[in-house]
């Protein structure tokens, strides 16, 4: 069974540095970090101390309120360091990898019931891979989701192409889907333009949706809002295809193996291509950068600034290298032509060169202002909501209005393009996140 979802609104940001479809290196890291900050709603309690030996799949942290929820080590080795930030906030547990990798054996057996699936997710540390909506937090133990949604592809700028990275993972994905289907019906979206060639349309036991359109058509939140909008009191779960494959591999082999193909992308990348790496790998082992370059874990719209000393995140299968844009352009806004700057607005002439890719940087291209032009938000938000009303409700902290205007259906990533297009340079994603945090606090 399948249905079509053709989205028109949105924007593909024409940025330079798309990855070539080849794996150019395999990174075997010396150390790997487990970052509790990757997981929203997770309050860490340390289970190991420096010097402890761990296997790939051994728990290193548990949730304070929900002790069943574990974070596990992706490698075997010894705990080298516990990194803490301000107020002793736990930032990461760094494990020094041993030469020979040893794995916890979870048993290569397909779960036969919802409880067995949940149990395996919890034990292996993959519970954190499941994201619960509304609010985009780590799934809670008690809720029964009405459905589980998987977007098999990403439309984000320069995103890793799952058709390439997961081309050999059909069996793992199928095993993962079968297990999750014990909990709730699984919906999977498939890209229309590669429908006949992609492995994802061969996946069984799912409700299939064929999706086309510019970014954010690949965002699972956008798809959910068209397939089965989240109303008050409902919850759905989502999981990324990369982590779904890891879960399937766990079922098929009994081992926790989070190895994935990571796309190294962006205008500052020497040779944009894929490498094989583990989450938690130090940035220094992944990329070499020269000059004033920002290292982003994820894509340019929603990614996290990892910094030179950071570690690849649990969810990330992309690193974007973006030059910092501290240079000041004379009469930028007044020039008739600015060939180096992209604008989706027709006030500039980027529309003359629709296939041109731009060497973008981090410059804000303006100063913060009050909202003036707001139609641009609707043009990049393919949902049946009024973005500006939701944004204003979040700013005002008005719970009732946030509910009415669709706070249950969005995560900041779904409105990330609003950040990009806004001539008033407001931080839309931050505003939405603030609204969501308020909802979590008030609704608890």
């Amino acid at each position, binding site marked *: 069974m399948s249905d079509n979802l053709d989205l028109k609104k949105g924007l593909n940001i024409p*940025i330079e540095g798309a990855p070539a479809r080849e794996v150019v290196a395999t990174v075997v890291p010396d150390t790997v970090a487990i970052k509790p900050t990757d997981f929203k709603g997770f309050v860490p309690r340390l289970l190991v101390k420096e010097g402890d030996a761990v296997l790939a799949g051994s728990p290193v942290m548990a949730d304070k309120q929900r002790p069943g929820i574990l974070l596990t080590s992706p490698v075997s080795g010894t705990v080298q360091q516990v990194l803490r930030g301000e107020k002793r906030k736990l930032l990461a547990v760094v494990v020094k990898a041993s030469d020979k990798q040893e794995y916890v054996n979870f048993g290569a057996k397909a779960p036969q019931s919802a409880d067995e699936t949940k149990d395996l997710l919890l034990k292996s540390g993959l519970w954190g891979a499941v994201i619960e909506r509304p609010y985009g937090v780590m799934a809670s133990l008690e809720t029964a989701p009405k459905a589980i949604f998987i977007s098999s592809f990403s439309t984000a700028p320069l995103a890793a192409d799952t058709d390439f990275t997961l081309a050999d993972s059909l069996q793992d994905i199928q095993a993962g889907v079968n297990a999750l289907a014990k909990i709730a019906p699984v919906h999977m979206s498939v890209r229309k333009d590669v429908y006949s060639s992609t492995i994802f349309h061969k996946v069984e036991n799912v409700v299939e949706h064929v999706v086309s359109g510019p970014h954010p058509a690949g965002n699972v939140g956008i798809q959910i809002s068209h397939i*089965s909008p989240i*109303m008050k009191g409902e919850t759905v779960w989502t999981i990324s295809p990369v982590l779904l494959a890891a879960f399937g591999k766990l079922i098929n082999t009994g081992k926790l193996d989070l190895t994935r193909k990571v796309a190294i992308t962006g205008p500052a990348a020497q040779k944009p291509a894929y490498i094989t790496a583990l989450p938690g790998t130090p940035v220094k082992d992944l990329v070499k950068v020269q000059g004033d370059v*920002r290292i982003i874990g994820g894509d*340019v*719209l*929603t*990614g996290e*600034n990892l910094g030179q000393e950071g570690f690849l995140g649990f969810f990330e299968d992309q690193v*974007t290298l*973006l030059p910092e*844009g*501290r240079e*000041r*352009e004379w*009469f*930028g*806004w*007044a020039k008739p032509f600015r060939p180096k*700057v*992209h*604008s*989706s*607005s*027709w*006030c*500039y002439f980027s529309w003359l060169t629709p296939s041109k890719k731009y060497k973008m*940087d*981090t*410059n*804000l*291209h*303006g*100063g913060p*202002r*009050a*909202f*003036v*032009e*707001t*139609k641009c938000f*609707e043009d990049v938000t393919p949902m*049946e909501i009024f973005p*500006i*009303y939701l944004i204003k409700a979040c700013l005002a902290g008005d719970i009732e209005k946030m509910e*009415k*205007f669709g706070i249950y259906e969005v995560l*900041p990533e779904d409105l*990330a*393009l609003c*950040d*990009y297009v*806004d*001539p*008033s*340079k407001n*931080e*839309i*994603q*931050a505003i939405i996140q603030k609204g969501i945090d308020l909802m979590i606090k008030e609704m608890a």
Partner: protein
Amino acid sequence: MAENTKPGLFEKGGKLYWLHSTIDAFDTFLRVPGTVTAKGAHVRDGIDLKRVMIMVVIALVPAALFGMYNVGLQTSTLYGLDWGFWHMFWYGLLRMLPLFVVSYAVGLIIEFASSQIRGEEVNEGYLVTGFLIPLIVPVDVPLWMLALAVAFSVIFVKEVFGGTGMNIWNPALVARAFLFFSYPSSMSGSDVWVSKTWVGALKDVDAISAATPLAIAHDGAYDAATGAVGQYSFMDMFWGFIPGSTGETSVVAILIGALILVWTGVASWKIMVSSVAGGLLVGWLGQLAGATALPCWYQLVMGGFLFGSVFMATDPVTAAQTETGKWIYGFLIGALAVVVRLWNPGYMEGMMLAILLMNTFAPLIDHCVVTAKVNRRAKKALNA
């Protein structure tokens, strides 16, 4: 230049830090700020409000240039002077220049001072407002009146609400309304629409009246056989060779501006189209009902109807925000403006008040549109 003024003195902690809004305004006017993204999306579109606002000013330029020529033309015609094209244009330019200077000087001083008080960057919104105001007032308006109107409108309509983006009414129109209600003798009637300040004094002629086509039509002087209103033919009105506010007379010049605004996406074509539709419909009904002999399309070429529809009603801050709301908002503006024109014994132009009234109701229109959609969607989800 800007490099020397930026560091030290005007930086946080510097002696003249309190002036930073003003310095930043000039600095960022010359060079794009070097600010990099701190949170949210790491890359941003090249567009900013300066660019948006300058697009509106560019769109206004054809109307302004034609208006200057027309100021000279009307004076030359009224007094029977034999001026050439450039003479007319220069006369108009020199007559308009003080209006622009006063409008920008007064407005920008208040704008800078307010930004300074709020500690924010200076907003570009006044670039447009300051250009619009001279185009919608009589060219002979005393400069002190203009200064007063600008001050009133910028302070009480914009700054008290929090500056550009926060205002409810279009500031340029409120400046005009302020003049209209405070100094009606300088703002209406048949004597104000042609410049005679300099020529009149030189030639020592008694005031000659030069009524606008709108006023002539109001008195019923429409010739159905030739299609002329008084001495003005339809084509005169279309090209703009008629008395009126500087910017409003030429349909052609305004349409060029409309094209720029619609093409760049700065203004909503939905508002323009629906406003014209509303005006035509009521104009047609009025003709059927016998309120006027004029065919409905005359409503578009006379007075400030088109200028208001294109440049004033579409102000993104004061207009309706929802797409459905824009249709309703624009339609009601056009319809109301013509209702005032046709069924009002005293005052023959309704555009200004129609827009200001609909500015007031725009949030209500949006509220209804949004609520209806939210309810419809909730119902659909329940049934699904």
